[in-house]
């Protein structure tokens, strides 16, 4: 997948680290390894790989994630 990248700076993914409880579920469900857990919080490490599938948003237990494809 490393050689297949889509357009940069378009994803609507937003992470609110204040709400994050560090459960790690987003790192499990994301098919593009967008997140990593660092010091007990999720961190976006590969923003441009996000395809806005919403898997992380649906499963985050603390509403720390948001994605809104088709808006803007």
């Amino acid at each position, binding site marked *: 997948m490393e050689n297949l990248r889509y357009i940069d700076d378009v994803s609507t993914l937003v992470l609110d680290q204040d709400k994050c409880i560090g459960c790690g579920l987003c790192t499990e469900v*994301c*098919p593009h*390894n967008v997140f990593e857990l660092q010091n007990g919080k999720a961190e976006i490490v590969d923003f441009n790989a996000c395809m*806005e599938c919403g898997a992380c948003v649906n499963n985050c237990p603390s509403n720390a994630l948001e994605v809104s*494809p088709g808006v803007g």
Partner: protein
Amino acid sequence: MKESTGVSIMPTMNDTQTCCGVEPKNVLADYEKPGYTLCSFIENFIPTDIGPIPKIKTKMEKKDIKATILVRTGIGRDNYKIAPGLYGIGSPDKTSEVLVTANFKLTFDHLRRELNNINAWILVLDTRGVNVWCAAGKGTFSTKELVKRIKLSSLEKVVDHKRVILPQLGATGITAREVKKESGFRVVYGPVRAKDIPLFLENNRKADKKMRMVTFDFIERLILTPVELNVVLKPAIITTVILFLLSGFGPDIFSFSNAIQRGVILIPALFVGIFAGAVFTPAMLPYIPFKKFAAKGIISGSAFAILFLLSLSSIPGTAAYISLFLFVMAISSNLSMNFTGATPFTSPSGVEKEMKQFIPVQVISILLSTGLWIYSAF
């Protein structure tokens, strides 16, 4: 309530009888029901507290492989599904894992093929015969359906634990905590690919980074092209007819012989454009410059247009040349852009951005091409 799985309604009774003399041995005779026929992928039934559960074969049969080819080529795409509900594989018991999947037969076949020597329960959701990834996006592989299927199949009486393993790509349609709240079962996300399931189970249900990443290699891309081609078939035929009519315009206002004479160049041009956009771009995706698919399509379309023009024996004139070039390029660009819908890495926001940018380019190219084509006849 228990569902009947592993059987499908038999539409006709016209099978010819071949055995009369010796009484054939039929281990599954007890499970036959009038009006139903046993599915060929069921090898036996497993007795459980809630009654017999169909046991799936892990080996694909000729029939399955033949059907797979038909579906992949887009001939038998619709309705290739199996009955949703609970199945077993190997010799599962109350401690065995429950693997959740979609009821698209190809997805199901793919899964069972990888589960040799594994004892597990397979909970098939009703996704209307669509694969996990697409069904999760469409909302049929959903929290609601999973909860419903867990209840309908009385899963809590089949296993002692409270855990279901879902394919990771189903996560888009599932909210794990809601499943837990409504069914009592905890969702564990398994690997993206079925072939990693045995290792995942061996490692105490832990997937490594590689198992969690989607891939989109050459073969995976190529498998999708027949379906892409199938989709363009109808518009292509309509376009061909329009092209013939357009080719008839000329000094004599409209002539049929003109239509035939000039139209025959346009038809191969159309197919060159389709090939460039719906086969070449998808197959060669990572090797074509630019990130936007429409731009990739312009590159591959231009390359094929030049090759095509060079291969023409008679020279139709500059205007016609440019017209043909624009025509091939625009088709390729548009079809390449369409391919974004089939990939597992393009974001809707990105697709929207490139559509806004490139649809005007494609439309202007086609209009210019049409104008030049008519002009070139005079």
